[in-house]
């Protein structure tokens, strides 16, 4: 590895470190972004792939599990980025309509940064997933455990968004409305996309596949059906 490559790699990982740390409060309406956008996108892909690989390792590395690890490593960054891309046009138009177009670039950076932080946190939590898989063989328990880790990562991402969005919200409180609106739509799309891209963990009783056949039903209807059944019980 030559010096230039080593230096750019160092800069890349130092950027990830800087992303996690709170910056000094600023009164500028435009947040300061020392990390290039391509690095943020690379963090999302790289760290989500790491967590995805761990996610697919249930219940161990025997049999077809390495294939499931590969599938999950591909699907997790897809989940984050495709959900984001699908919500971007609506985010752009409504931002424009609310008079926030001049802040669109920093707003999008903040959202991409949040996903990068989410991926970073997931990657950091990946060893916990491995320990869980080693200590418990229940598929449902593994699903719940990873769901909890996702919630933690989501909270961390939200923390960064608040940090990045702070100056924007102070300059124009409408950014807060926009942020909440985007978050609701993003989650709405991401849940369905996760349902379409399933399995991420992969039931060991079933065949290892990139995605389930006949999968095109609706996540929300499945959730509603579960609620109705639970209430009937």
């Amino acid at each position, binding site marked *: 590895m030559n010096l230039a490559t080593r230096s750019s790699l160092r800069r890349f990982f130092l950027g990830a470190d800087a992303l996690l740390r709170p910056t000094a409060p600023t009164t500028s309406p435009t947040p300061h972004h020392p990390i290039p956008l391509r690095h943020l996108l690379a963090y999302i892909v790289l760290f989500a792939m790491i967590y995805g690989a761990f996610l697919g390792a249930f219940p161990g590395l025997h049999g077809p599990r390495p294939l499931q690890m590969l599938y999950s490593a591909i699907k997790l960054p897809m989940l984050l980025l495709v959900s984001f891309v699908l919500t971007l046009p609506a985010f752009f*138009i409504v931002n424009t*309509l609310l*008079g926030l*177009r001049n802040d669109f670039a920093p707003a999008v950076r903040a959202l991409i940064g949040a996903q990068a932080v989410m991926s970073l946190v997931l990657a950091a939590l990946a060893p916990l997933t491995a320990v869980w898989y080693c200590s418990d063989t229940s598929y449902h328990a593994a699903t719940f455990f990873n769901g909890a880790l996702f919630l933690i990562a989501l909270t961390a991402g939200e923390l960064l968004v608040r940090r990045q969005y702070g100056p924007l919200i102070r300059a124009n409180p409408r950014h807060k409305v926009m942020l909440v609106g985007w978050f609701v739509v993003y989650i709405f799309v991401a849940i369905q*996309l996760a349902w379409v891209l399933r399995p991420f963990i992969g039931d060991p009783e079933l065949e290892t596949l990139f995605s389930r056949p006949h999968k*095109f039903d*609706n996540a929300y209807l499945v959730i*509603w059906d579960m609620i109705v059944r639970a209430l009937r019980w």
Partner: protein
Amino acid sequence: MRQWLSELDRVLRGKATTLPALKDGTIDISPGGLTVVLIVLAAIYGTCMGFYGLFSVPDWEGWKQMAASTVKMPALFLLTLIVTFPSLYVFNALVGSQLTLRALGRLMVAAMAVLLAVLASFGPIVAFFSVTTTSHPFILLLNVACCALAGALGMGFLLQTLHRMSLVMEATFQEQRAKAKPVSPTAPLVPLSPVADEAAPPSVSIEATASPATTWPGAGDVPVAAPGAGAAPGAGAAPGGVPPLRHSLSGQPLQPPLSLPAEQSALDRIPGSVFSPHVKTVFQFWVILFALVGTQMSWVLRPFIGKPDEPFILFSPRESNFFQAVLKALGQLLGWDS
């Protein structure tokens, strides 16, 4: 096309509807060009809707459904506008609004452009759910929700722009009066409009008091004469000239305060209440009428989505109504309807 898109951008950013931009009493847009853009936007959303048919209706029927949705969506909005516009114009004129046919037409085109831009921006989400969902009621309700949200924003734009146009036109009206007959500081109440004079409560009347020219929000560095300043916009006030307008009861200045941000969005409400209650009521009723006609028109032009495993039909037979269908879809979705 690029110019038309930049016009759409101006409308969305609110640059076409700042007070100085409206000083001629109309929105400075090319209605023809913007109409082409809004047809394209509606067609994009129609195509996204058609994805459901493409994946759930067998063989070529799905493609036919997609093509039909692509054509029907622009038709839905244009026909709704054609049906509701004459009544709006007539009642608008009857209650004494000073909006001309041209100004009203441009206002409608701009409002539709906002509505359809928002709707088209939801297109990718609708297309994604259309491809990944087999539930017909879910897709139906998702589309209804997207249209309702876009409609709310489009109609919000319409009402806010109308309010701004009323402010500008009232200022021009008073300015012309002041030119014709100088107003003394103790001038009698001046009616907002011929009809408002007879029926409106005193709170909508205005009186004149002395003050120099002012800058309206959104004017940037371009000075605009205060309403009733007795000078052409941009020329400033004549010394000892006619002062700005004040509400007769509250005594508040008619023109908006200078503390407003220079950058306004298309949906920002500008303080001031020269809006005649009659005109306001007509527009509020029209918004409801537009929504009702739009929903019924969509019912007449249905199907937009296409039911799974059913052959393609261009128009469904006449039966039931939109609201019953939505309630039925909701019932099916939640398992309340067998």
